């Protein structure tokens, strides 16, 4: 099948949605500019005009409310922010309005807005350009939270999000934009709230999300060689959680490692581990574990980020630890490029 990049898949999903329905509009800082939000919005303004595809002032809060208002009169807005961190300005509109509008007016008042939030990583993005805030969004009733890993999922989930009647936060990890995968040209949808078993296994369940799933896949291969068979589940959405798939897997394997891109405390990993402990406690052969960031802001210095961030090596080591096996280095997991970039093609600054 045809291979395209994650960024192209996002672009294709928006393009398709806009051609399917003239209710779809898309806006955000830089949407029609020459870079097109890491290529994800290139060409759209030319095709659909500047009433449906437009740039915006740096007014994150009002623009979110404007998206909400447009959806009240029947549009399906897609808003985008180049960093999730900027969106903190808009949490009143998100949490007090978008998440609650349908509820507080007694139903039949859906807000079908999709908010694309890009999660930064590396190259000294630092404390306010690389936060991972999925847990905050997931805690709020009324919001859906989607985090695709593959180009295939990006397209199917984005189409689903756009045509979903609830507000959806669609988090794209910056390091995924350049990854490629098989993506059908046709329209297809992937249900929000369905995770995906990327690799079946029998000894331990790994629940991972977004970019960390890429790292986990590499680790899982090497673990296979150590005779540890991992079942790797790509979460795909944290709200709603696909509890059926996760619990079924844990019941089978008896072990759990949750891998998150965020600070560890009060994170997605907390909820998954808590839920598993409350509901299927006796399935566990060993205590559930997590691999996430320590509770510190993301550092800027190249000298710190390699230790701060987790990768395939850390996943590998953590799983060995769970099986009480001595740690051992694994050369196959070493990266062939600097730890703070997605690949050698990346020359900064974003």
């Amino acid at each position: 099948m045809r291979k395209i990049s994650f960024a192209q898949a996002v672009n294709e999903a928006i393009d398709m949605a806009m051609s399917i329905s003239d209710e779809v509009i898309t806006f955000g800082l830089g949407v029609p500019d020459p870079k097109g939000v890491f290529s994800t919005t290139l060409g759209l303004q030319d095709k659909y005009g500047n009433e449906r595809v437009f740039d915006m002032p740096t007014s994150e809060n009002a623009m979110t409310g404007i998206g909400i208002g447009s959806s009240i009169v029947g549009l399906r807005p897609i808003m985008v922010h180049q960093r999730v961190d900027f969106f903190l300005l808009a949490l009143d509109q998100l949490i007090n309005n978008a998440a609650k509008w349908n509820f507080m007016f007694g139903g039949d008042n859906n807000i079908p807005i999709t908010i694309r939030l890009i999660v930064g990583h590396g190259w000294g993005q630092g404390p306010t350009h690389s936060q991972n805030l999925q847990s905050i969004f997931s805690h709020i009733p009324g919001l859906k939270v989607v985090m695709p890993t593959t180009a295939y999922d990006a397209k199917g989930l984005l189409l689903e999000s756009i045509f979903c009647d609830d507000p959806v936060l669609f988090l794209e990890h910056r390091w995924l934009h350049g990854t490629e995968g098989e993506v059908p040209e046709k329209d297809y949808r992937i249900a929000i709230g369905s995770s995906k078993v990327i690799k079946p296994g029998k000894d331990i369940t790994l629940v991972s999300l977004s970019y960390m799933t890429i790292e986990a896949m590499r680790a899982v291969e090497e673990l296979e060689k150590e005779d540890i068979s991992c079942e790797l589940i790509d979460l795909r959405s944290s709200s709603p959680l696909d509890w059926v798939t996760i619990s079924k897997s844990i019941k089978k394997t008896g072990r759990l490692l949750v891998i998150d891109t965020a600070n560890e405390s009060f994170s997605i990993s907390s909820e998954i581990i808590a839920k598993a402990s409350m509901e299927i406690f006796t399935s566990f052969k060993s205590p559930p574990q997590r691999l996430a960031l320590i509770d510190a802001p993301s550092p800027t210095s190249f000298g710190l980020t390699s230790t701060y961030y987790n990768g395939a090596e850390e996943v590998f080591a953590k799983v060995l630890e769970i099986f009480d096996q001595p740690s051992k280095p694994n050369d196959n997991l070493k990266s062939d490029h600097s730890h703070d970039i997605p690949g050698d093609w990346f020359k900064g600054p974003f």
Partner: protein
Amino acid sequence: MAKLRKGVFGRLNSFINNHIIIKSKNMSLFEMQKRMLKIRFVEESIAERYSEGKMRCPTHLSIGQEAIAVGVCANLNKDDLVLSTHRAHAHYLAKGGDLKKMIAEIYGKVTGCSKGMGGSMHLIDKSVGFMGSTAIVGNTIPVAVGMAKGLKLRNKDAISCVFFGDGATEEGVFFESLNFAIIQNLPVIFVCENNLYSVYSGLEVRQPKGRKIYEMARSMGIEANHGNGNDVVEVYEKMLKAKDNISKDKGPQFLEFDTYRWREHCGPNYDNDLGYRDESEFLKWREKDPLKNVLDSSEFKSYIDSLKDDICEAHLFAENSKYPEYEEFLEISGIKK
């Protein structure tokens, strides 16, 4: 866009045909006065019964501020869209919202306009274009701009209109919203009800001395006007002009009206005894009652009588209605499908 909108007279005619106001000016005033009376008596009935403890939600009365709601909404068609704030009763009623459903909502009943999920601060009646009110200061302002964006994009011959208080103009989102409405030339009218207070805080601790809100708005690039919010005719005319401006493609419009809230910020009582404002100030404003000479005019006697019946009936309806079932709550909140 201009070519798609009917001229102001076309709109006014269709408006008259909708029987919201009657042809001659006096008659239209008469109709507006009836609407103000309705709001006044409804609010009084809530104030009177609030202490019974059956309306159990924060409730902000509009007594004293009726003229703005009525004068503005008298210029709006059903398909023009309105949003409002925590103090929404007047706007809801002036736009034609269902009385029974509003009262039932305040009682928390499933027959309420928001099925009891929202209470006094979350009113909606989409059948007449009243699109909602919220409890967070300023946060419907951008929503109204977004509705205007949608209306314009879909070539709808309708406008969006949002009410908010003087306090809301201190929120950053107010400026952001105006800015975008101007950039995209959206059909939205911003109506600021300046009643001098935000809760118990006077303007002097919140805004610079001598600040004219409408002039500040104007300097952002929007056409802005100002008037006596206790004079329904003045409000009507300024709103007519603003709507006319939109149909002439002069872009979004801003209106500021001076007015005064009579009772406490939230709740049924008077609170001048608290000392945050002078009794004399209150008395001065009560003199400027938008319903002066109307309340005790014999012309309205029979209307008032029937109004009182309607209001009693609405309270009865509300009291006799059921609370929402918990199952229904779970469905609406999306927990059960």
